[in-house]
């Protein structure tokens, strides 16, 4: 087999390996940076039938967060609620994990709460070419005029399901990808970002 390493950023990396931290692709200041973050906890929250309004009120009371029933993200006190479906949110906590217990205490019979900390990995994506790179896998318009800070979307990147958002106070994008797909996702991201240079870190 010819040596294609000068144009194949994945040369030598089998599909069964999580690509290691480091620089990939063009030898320039990276156009995309991806950092794997470790959220303390993740849980899915699903409003019980007819209890959506009560749930929003409870969220305000318990966490000071304005729960929006739309593909948006709202955060307060270290908790982020990302709308993934009508009446459903993925909840991220960056504090130590008693998330399910806290949510249970606040929402009790109003919602179904399910532990999801191990189900997905969280990435922060930034860099001057972040939208150009994401456009290679996402059929979603990320132009700031239509996808502004606070927007979220559950969609596919290169045939892999992801939930993506832009936090109101941050300029980067955050993305959740299912654990079993992580290697495939990174491969697609590396391939997409190689032309402009890509730096991956946080995996150790």
């Amino acid at each position, binding site marked *: 087999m*010819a040596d294609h390493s000068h144009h194949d950023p994945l040369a030598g990396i089998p599909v*069964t390996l999580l690509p290691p931290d480091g620089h990939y692709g063009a030898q320039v200041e990276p156009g995309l940076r991806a950092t794997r973050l470790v959220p303390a906890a993740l849980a899915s929250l*699903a409003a019980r*039938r007819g209890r959506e309004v009560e749930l929003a009120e409870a969220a305000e009371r318990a966490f000071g967060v304005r729960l929006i029933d739309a593909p948006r993200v709202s955060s307060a006190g270290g908790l982020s609620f990302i709308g993934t479906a009508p009446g459903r949110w993925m909840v991220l906590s960056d504090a130590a994990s008693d998330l399910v217990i806290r949510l249970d205490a606040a929402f009790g019979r109003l*919602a179904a709460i399910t532990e999801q900390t191990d189900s997905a990995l969280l990435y922060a994506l930034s860099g001057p070419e972040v939208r150009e790179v994401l456009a290679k896998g996402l059929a979603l318009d990320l*132009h700031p005029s239509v996808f502004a800070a606070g927007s979220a979307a559950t969609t596919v990147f290169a045939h892999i399901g992801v939930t993506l958002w832009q936090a109101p106070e941050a300029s980067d994008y955050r993305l959740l990808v299912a654990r079993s797909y992580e290697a495939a996702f990174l491969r697609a991201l590396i*391939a997409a970002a190689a*032309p402009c240079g890509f730096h991956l870190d946080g995996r150790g």
Partner: protein
Amino acid sequence: MSRLSSGGLIDRARPLSFRFDGKGYQGYEGDTLASALLANDVRLVGRSFKYHRPRGIFSAGPEEPNALVELREGARREPNTRATLVELFDGLAASSQNRWPSLALDALSVNGLLSPFLGAGFYYKTFMWPAHFWEKLYEPVIRRAAGLGRAAPEEDPDHYEKANAFCDVLVIGAGPAGLMAALAAGRAGARVILAEEDFRVGGRLNAEPGEIDGAPAGEFVAATLAELCSLDNVRIMTRTTVFGVYDGGAYGAVERVSDHLATPAPFQPRQVLWRIQATRAVLCAGATERPIVFGGNDRPGVMLAGAAATYVHRYAALPGKRLAVFANNDAAWRDALAMKAAGANVEAIIDIRPDIAAPLAREAERQGVRTILGGQVVATHSGLLPGATLSGLTVAANGRTERLAADTLAVSGGWSPNVHLTCHHGGKPTWRADIAAFVPGSTPPGLTVAGAAKGSFALADILREGAEEGATAAADLGLATTILALPPVADERYAITPFWHVAGSKGPAFVDQQNDVTAKDIGIAHKEGFRSVEHLKRYTTLGMATDQGRTSNVTGLAIMAELTGAGIGETGTTIFRPPYTPVALGAFAGHHRGQDFRPTRLTPTHDWAASLGAVFIETGPWLRAQYFPRDGETDWLETVNREVKAVRASVGLIDVSTFGKIDLQGPDAGAFLDRVYINTFSTLAIGKARYGVMLREDGMVMDDGTTARLGESHYVMTTTTANAGKVFQHLEFCLQVLWPELDVTLTSVSEQWAQIALAGPRSREVLARIVDAGTDVSNDGLPFMGAIAGAVMGGVPARLFRLSFSGELGFEIAVPARHGEALAKALMAAGETFGITPYGIEALGVLRIEKGHVSGNELTGQTTAADLGLGRMASTKKDHIGRVMAARPGIADPERPSLVGFRPVDRTQRLRAGAHFLTPGKAAEVGNDEGYMTSVAYSPHLGHWIGLGLLKDGPERIGYRVRAYDPVRGNDFEVEVCAPGFIDPKGERLRG
């Protein structure tokens, strides 16, 4: 050399070296391969498809039918590349095609002598007799002779990308109309993408001299380009062809990022396939010139008039030393006179029209160009050597014939608007007699047309239409637009008299040069009844070559229209479909090639299994361990036998994380399960699990799995690996659409939990060593089919299920997925004294077949619960999905093939899944088919092969023999019918 000393959009400071058919030449940056060849006096570039006639460069664009070359060498070799589109680069190597031993002396030009036999439709009339000659003789010979270029023999070393783009206005084509449209929309603040096929913007303004606003047109192009580049909301994509209009404002385009480089820069793709989502689009694709057809019109040196002018003006390359022009329209005169003014030796203009506009006649006289009005070219001539190019032509005018010397004949039969994209949604173009051309009819929603693509050939009209359509598109989106000032340009008339074919000319008159279709072939098609334009195309192959008939479609159907007497408009065109130009398959694949064809899913214990040397197998998108070979084992069966024996003798473990896992919460969770499973779950005790079967509404089994009740309003369901997504979709349908009144939520937890099955008589002992105090896995604490929450490995939360697919004492342990590998290792350590054995899905299959459990091979979507011996599970007290249809007489028929077990009569025989069952003595005919073998395995415990299968009246025939007929693999022997369970039929080992 035929290069003008000045002028042209080439950079004389950057010479480039290239090779054609092994010979070295020089060109300049800005040249195409075609322009550089002409500048080097290379006028013979290929041999035609059928007759191997010598051919030259015919056009200057994508409509090129003849100048097809093999570009590059080795793994990047690309056949059938149009030399007119190849951007010259240093070191380029190209070869002519379809000739042997050489371009000048081609042995297969003898095919020309066979032309009476190779006319239209010969494919349908020849090579039929004798029939057995086809495979041995005709096909191999035809294969060797057919085709043009050769594909590269190695894997494509380049990579490709796919990308998405969004815009308000997509402008297709950056000629004068497109530049104005982009400017109007861009200034209004619309998000604009301007796509241009060429490597420069400007369109026809690059190919013609002329002034805009008192200055050379090139200055207008440069200034417009500069302003567009300065606008953040405008994206210009050159080398980008929009090839298709799809539904809902979606456009396909291919960007040739690196085609013009010897090799792509590191990590850059060769090409990018774009999916552009545009609210509005303006098509400014221009028009393509068509020729007049006459005898000998394919000789090298005969080319389109506009192309000849393009070579002179844009590339400063003279197509030849003595030029004549043959035309029926005014534009060709302007091309001819512009060439003369630039230094080409244009000696005569022959026009079929008896009268010509006075200004053109005056200009011709002023420039000293002879004009022959009312004239027609009736023959062409060339030298006597093989592969010789044009040397002269014969003209008939006013009752006399005359021979003219010429090495280049520039021909124009008029211009055809490039309507193709307007037809991609099924719209049909309409005929305009005043310009003798088809123009767009209805267009896809959101797409409008401006300029020559719409039939407007005067530059003033083109500029105005482009500006108007760009502004309208922006205004429709609610943006405020200002009226663009239109620069003044000279007035241009386009007068044309339709003329298609010189009847009575001598020699073959080619209509489609690439597929060697002549005017005579059209006559044959007409005579044989193939008169509709769709039949004409397919019978003669006119328009079916890689140039898609760009220079032949209209002429061909016009000739047919003359024969049938119908109007051209009535005859119509064939249907234009995407892609507008060929698109490399690699571009459609992008990153998804080879191992990345689709995403691979890895289980939480993958690395651990790999470290033990597991062999993996694809199960849908997953990689699962198939078996774990040990040193010294010679084949997979030996490994699998060891694994199976170890499980029944002691203990083994297998990752079962790939099952779908669905969390159900809510007071109606049990009621919901009752409606989707055939059996009852609302009565399931907390802390217990139950096997469930799920039907489709048509009564067939969709999936099976176990569902456990963890709390009053809390269940966890598992599905098979393959059906996880399908089941979740089905459950959501039931909940959202059928029974939205039910108070229950569904959440997928497939990824949250790693799950390992531990099976064998020692499994409880192993498990007990890893559970924390307080988690009781004794027979009392975790009875058969129990489900409890607990903790393992010092504080890791776990769910423990007493389940068994293998029929041995068994458990499934679920832990949060990050702990999956640690769990596997902990179990291995805890089980070391028992010789714990990791096993894969092969052994899993053997174990479940030994027990008669159904799996994917039996859950085919065509089997009912009754077929599988599970009919009695179905509750009669409640409705569930599929209940009514499962009772249909046809599928409730007890004579349907149903599940039983099989043993070979001769115990040494290997059983095969897929063998069909016949009553012994009955003929092996479909009518006697009584079922088939669904699953087989070698049972190391029994020492022979066993199988499960579906047999008519199966349970009644236990103890009898049937014939297992497998003609595909050459097997035919008898098998014994037995109960579908070979080991521990009473299930005593399960419940200990």
